[in-house]
């Protein structure tokens, strides 16, 4: 299955092998078109809850906008530590926490602080390719660990262990996963923790979607297991659970010396997080949590609508257990995923991302977000169906 459609613009074709740039090229293309339904970027369409915005407004009007320490506001670090202890079972205090400019910077700083050139990082495949750059810059080498649809893209300890070499330094887990919406379940994480302890691996775990889990599944933090706190870097952010992507406010929990190292890197990389965003984050994590449950209910309803649409399209999928996406097998169309995404955008005016934006081998998968209202999702399905019928091989 190759990229044969001669109409695919050069702007897309030129970056087809770079997952992140491919996504941005498609977004640029969509921006130049009218009436496109965007089911591409993982940016919640819902508003930041009003009590969080109100807290930010108060901070600004009271002049609480001066520069903070690189690690973040002390009050916010304490509140995050309390939250992670209470809700994730992580044995952390404020000194184990730092505030980052979104979740992505947390990963960047962790990699810079821990990875030497030549170190191997085990990464479940498919992957969030936006992390590739951070790993490459540090001289790290990604080693893929396979996951599959039949297993709802859960991660197996045996597969992790099989990928370990003498150069292995760390395991990167994203749970719930972007792009697959699979989660790594507690039983699997316990087995993976044993492997990591036996092979002295660091675990970097991105839990940015951990508040968006669909019943009956539940989130489990590997850093809460015995022997794991001293080897685990836990990343999270306010961006997804509270619809706060534009505030750029995330956080990391790690051993104190790692936090100190990451903060030193942050001091010369981006400096402290915008102070107003930190006050907003504090309101998010200490304020009423009804909004998170309310948003989860909305995403649950949307997920049902989208899965129904995918059934009509003849797309298979692993059960989406968390997060804001569906990762669907489009092989029944016989069309390369990049080409399929192009056709659905050009002719159906629906933006989705091809699987190749999340790993070179995922030519028969697409990632679709839940980030439009239900009626819009229904319209998107109706737009996609005739395009698929027209081009299905």
């Amino acid at each position, binding site marked *: 299955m190759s990229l044969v459609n001669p109409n695919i613009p050069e702007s897309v074709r030129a970056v087809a092998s770079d997952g992140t740039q491919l996504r941005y090229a498609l977004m640029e293309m969509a921006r130049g078109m009218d009436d496109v339904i965007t089911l591409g970027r993982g940016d919640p369409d819902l508003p930041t809850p009003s009590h969080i*915005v109100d807290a930010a407004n108060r901070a600004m009007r009271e002049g609480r906008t001066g520069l903070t320490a690189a690690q973040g506001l002390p009050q916010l670090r304490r509140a995050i530590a309390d939250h992670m202890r209470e809700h994730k079972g992580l044995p952390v205090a404020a000194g184990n926490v730092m505030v980052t400019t979104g979740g992505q910077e947390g990963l960047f700083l962790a990699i810079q602080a821990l990875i030497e050139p030549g170190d191997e990082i085990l990464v479940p495949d498919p992957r969030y390719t936006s992390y590739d750059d951070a790993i490459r810059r540090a001289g790290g080498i990604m080693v893929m660990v396979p996951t599959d649809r039949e297993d709802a893209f859960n991660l197996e300890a045996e597969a992790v262990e099989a990928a370990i070499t003498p150069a292995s330094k760390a395991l990167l887990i994203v749970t719930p996963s972007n792009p697959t919406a699979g989660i790594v379940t507690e039983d699997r994480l316990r087995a993976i923790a044993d492997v990591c302890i036996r092979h002295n691996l660091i675990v970097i775990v991105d839990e940015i979607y951990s508040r968006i889990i669909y019943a009956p599944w539940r989130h489990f933090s590997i850093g809460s297991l015995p022997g794991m706190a001293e*080897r685990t870097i836990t990343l999270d952010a306010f961006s997804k659970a509270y619809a706060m*992507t*534009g*505030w750029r406010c995330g956080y990391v929990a790690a*051993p104190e010396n790692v936090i100190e190292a990451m903060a030193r890197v942050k001091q010369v990389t981006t400096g402290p997080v915008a102070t107003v965003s930190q006050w907003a984050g504090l309101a998010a994590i200490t304020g009423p949590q009804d909004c998170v449950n309310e948003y989860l209910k909305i995403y649950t309803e949307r997920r049902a609508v989208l899965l129904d649409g995918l059934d009509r399209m003849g797309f298979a999928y692993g059960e989406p257990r968390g997060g804001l996406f569906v990762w669907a097998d489009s092989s029944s169309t016989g069309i390369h995923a990049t080409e399929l995404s192009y056709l659905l955008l050009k002719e159906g005016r629906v933006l989705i991302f091809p699987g190749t934006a999340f790993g070179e081998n995922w030519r028969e998968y697409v990632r679709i977000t839940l980030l439009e209202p239900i009626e819009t999702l229904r319209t998107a399905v109706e737009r996609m169906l005739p395009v698929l019928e027209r081009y299905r091989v």
Partner: protein
Amino acid sequence: MNTVKTLSRSLASRVARLDALPAPPQDEPEVLSNVVEAAVAALARGETHYTDRPGIPEFRAWVADHLAERYNVLVDPSEVTVTCGSTEARFVTMTLLVEAGGAVLCPGDSSRIRGALHILGADVVDSIQDDISLLYITPDDYRETAIELLQRAEDANWWIVYDLSFAKSAPPFHPAQNEKLASRVVTIDSLSADLAGWRLGWMAGSAAALRLRAGKQAITICTTAVSQWAGLEFLKANVS
């Protein structure tokens, strides 16, 4: 969790010589009410999502207009990227335009680029040597020295970073006024003096502009939306 045998052995060597963290400033500089109200209005409009990766178009257009009016330097808004303070702009330009093992020539104060270069594994030097690939200058450097080095940059094909943030002087001089150099000049500036806690800076121009944009995206995706709207109001009201 404070006993960290495993990870204490694992810290990368690149962090070993980074400076200790400074204490945060105790002052809360006053922010003009029009700036605060612009930020409040932006939030009320729902500006709480990712912005365009390089920044809001209005901010980028202001930067391009400012460079044209103040310095007679032409930069397309698409070549401007809004960053998290000038710190991120310096980090991205240094680490993407200089190779590990290479050197940056800095005739003046190098304190603001040493950390980024240390992480990269590159050196900062104050005299000409063979492995230089970038010249870092500010308006506070001796003009004669800067002009001499810019002539050398033209011959040697170095990248040039002209850092206006924190400058004590503001001459109308700009290295990109030289057409032969313009495609290799990145301008850095920020609102760090007036809106430090809002974390706003920018990098503008050069043939590497799109690469720099992607480099910023890989670290922080985009700059805080509400800060960009506040900063835009500050610039429009206070910087002619």
